[in-house]
């Protein structure tokens, strides 16, 4: 791809040539690249950008179920919602709606604890699996199984196991003489329960990803460390962890985004009416949009806010990583 990397030459060319000529030259050089990305750009434009713009617009209005345009029989009722500026954002961010900050706090707790357990357990298991031992491939397959189950199926199964009267967990606890735990009723236990399910579902991905990272660390580094008399802990600290850095950075970022947006587990596990105090921002926004009185504007506002928070997180995370990389 020599032609593609020769960009600086084009940029350095003096502006003597006319704009049209330069456009022509750019086109000649890049038209096939543009043609190749065109389908995706079109799809993104129609299916993402257009709804996104509409969503942003809705978040500046007071649209709800009652005042949007709708079709009743043959008559068409026009939309009567109004532009209200930043009112929605102000109501949410000032804490006036009473929902945002508690739910944000729980969403952050949920994300941090899930990703923490995903990563530490995944790393631990990967380190165990990265040794020579009998039955390694069997362990590997067994440990990966939770990932192979569709999340919604897994959520239902766990919901059955958490059942307070006939669930297997309470049955086992009962045999140990511990009274029944109201897993899905009590707010605190609900939170424990959903974190448990998500950890179970998410560890295999981390494990496999970290295992891949471990296997990519060259054994010469370990041999050199051994020759210098490094203890196992020192080898882990100074060879393994730095070697895992690229993989870890990526999977932790992916995991954070996925967990922050994790809809099915909380929604299917707790249902809509049951989880008023343990729903995360995404499920709350969903309930706003499709709950009893559909608050489209509120849901759109929450959607935009969630996306903005994730973007800020991603940018800062990358920046911190880059800085660490530069400092090393």
């Amino acid at each position, binding site marked *: *791809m020599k032609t*593609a*990397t020769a960009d600086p030459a084009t940029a350095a060319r003096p502006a003597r040539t006319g704009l049209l000529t330069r456009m022509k030259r750019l086109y000649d050089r890049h038209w*096939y*690249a543009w043609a*190749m*990305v065109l*389908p*995706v*750009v079109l799809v*993104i434009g129609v*299916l*993402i950008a257009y*709804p*996104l713009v509409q969503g942003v617009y*809705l978040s500046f209005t007071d649209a709800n179920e009652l005042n*949007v345009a709708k079709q009743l029989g043959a008559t068409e009722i026009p939309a009567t919602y109004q532009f209200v500026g930043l009112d929605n954002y102000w109501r949410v961010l000032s804490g006036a709606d009473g929902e945002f900050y508690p739910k944000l706090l729980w969403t952050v707790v949920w994300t941090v604890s899930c990703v923490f357990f995903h990563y530490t357990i995944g790393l631990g*298991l990967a380190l165990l*699996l990265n*040794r*020579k*031992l*009998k039955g390694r491939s069997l362990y590997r397959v*067994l*440990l990966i*199984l939770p990932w192979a189950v569709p999340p*919604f*199926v897994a959520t*239902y*199964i*766990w919901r059955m196991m958490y059942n307070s*009267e*006939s*669930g297997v967990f309470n049955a086992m606890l009962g045999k140990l003489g511990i009274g029944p735990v109201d897993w899905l009723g009590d707010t605190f236990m609900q939170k424990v329960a959903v974190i448990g399910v998500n950890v179970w579902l998410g560890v295999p991905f981390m494990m*496999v*990803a970290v295992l*891949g990272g471990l296997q990519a660390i060259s*054994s010469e580094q370990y041999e050199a460390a*051994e*020759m210098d*008399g490094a203890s*196992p802990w020192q*080898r882990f600290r100074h060879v393994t962890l730095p070697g895992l850095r*690229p*993989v870890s*950075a990526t*999977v932790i970022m*992916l995991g954070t985004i996925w967990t922050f947006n994790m809809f*099915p587990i909380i929604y*299917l596990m707790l249902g809509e009416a049951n989880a008023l105090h343990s729903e995360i*921002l*995404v499920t709350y926004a*969903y309930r706003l*949009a499709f709950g009893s009185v559909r608050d*489209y504007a509120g*849901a*759109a506002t929450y959607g935009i806010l969630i*996306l903005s928070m994730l*973007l800020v997180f*991603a940018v800062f995370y990358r920046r911190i990583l880059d800085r660490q990389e530069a400092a090393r």
Partner: protein
Amino acid sequence: MSTATEPRKNAPAARAAAGPAGTAGAGAGAGGTRPRKVRGRHERSPLASAGLHGALIAASLVAVFPIVYMVFISLRGRDGWTRPTSAEGGLEISNYAYVLSETEFPRWFANSLLVAAGTTLIGVFVAASTGYAISRMRFPGHKSLMWVLLVTQMFPVAVLIVALYNILGDMGLLDSYIGLVLTYCSVSVPFCAWMMKGYFDTIPHEIDEAGRVDGLTPFGTFYRLILPLAKPGLAVTAFYSFITAWGEVAFARAFLSTDSMLTLSVGLQSFIGQHKAEWGYLTASAVIISIPAGLVFLLVQRNLVAGLTAGGTKG
């Protein structure tokens, strides 16, 4: 266990670590008998071995238990789930028979299959050439496109769902296969492009150059040389986007209303409605859903992780 160490790799390290006292790594299997301060990477005491296996067995049990339990309950008849720890009465397949013949389950299964397959086909076909272009070529707009693809991975369902609901409603596409497939494409197309970029990155650039030298156009290089090489990557991308659509809950729940149009993720909920929870039927359905997906999954998972993380580590 420690005798399983690979002699070729281990010998120099062991010799070096053991110092002058070492006898050319001959005693590599003896574990802790040699006088040495640091244990090498490939050796461990029997106690450590037991601990290692113990930890892995415990983790495996936790990983497997819910799945085994699901199969167990599904075979225990309609009310077996109310006696969670007893096995009296034996196992039966009545739940499976009921679910397959008396409920809408086969219909939901077909719906899910159709929607997920449609999404996957569109996703892979639309995204393949883009994945290649952003992997190999630097063109004006490259950076912003990468950014857009990355940002779309962060979209929470809540950000598009209201607008899409209204747009699809205007077009009369709510409660239809096409509407749902289009919705899912908003997730799967950027995702597939991102993931395939990761695969194309792993194919050596020399192959492209060879193609160019032989007089192929960039399109020719892509279709004749790179695409065939990327088949495993395409398969994995397709599978992953299939699975994502297969298990999607939020859009399906909001957009589908007719009972016969439901996909599995929404339909299953009707087994455990407010009045009577039919966990027997639900588990039977769950097993039927999980087996094919699980089998294919285990075949492709090795490549899956590579694809998911490759784009990120290099981008």
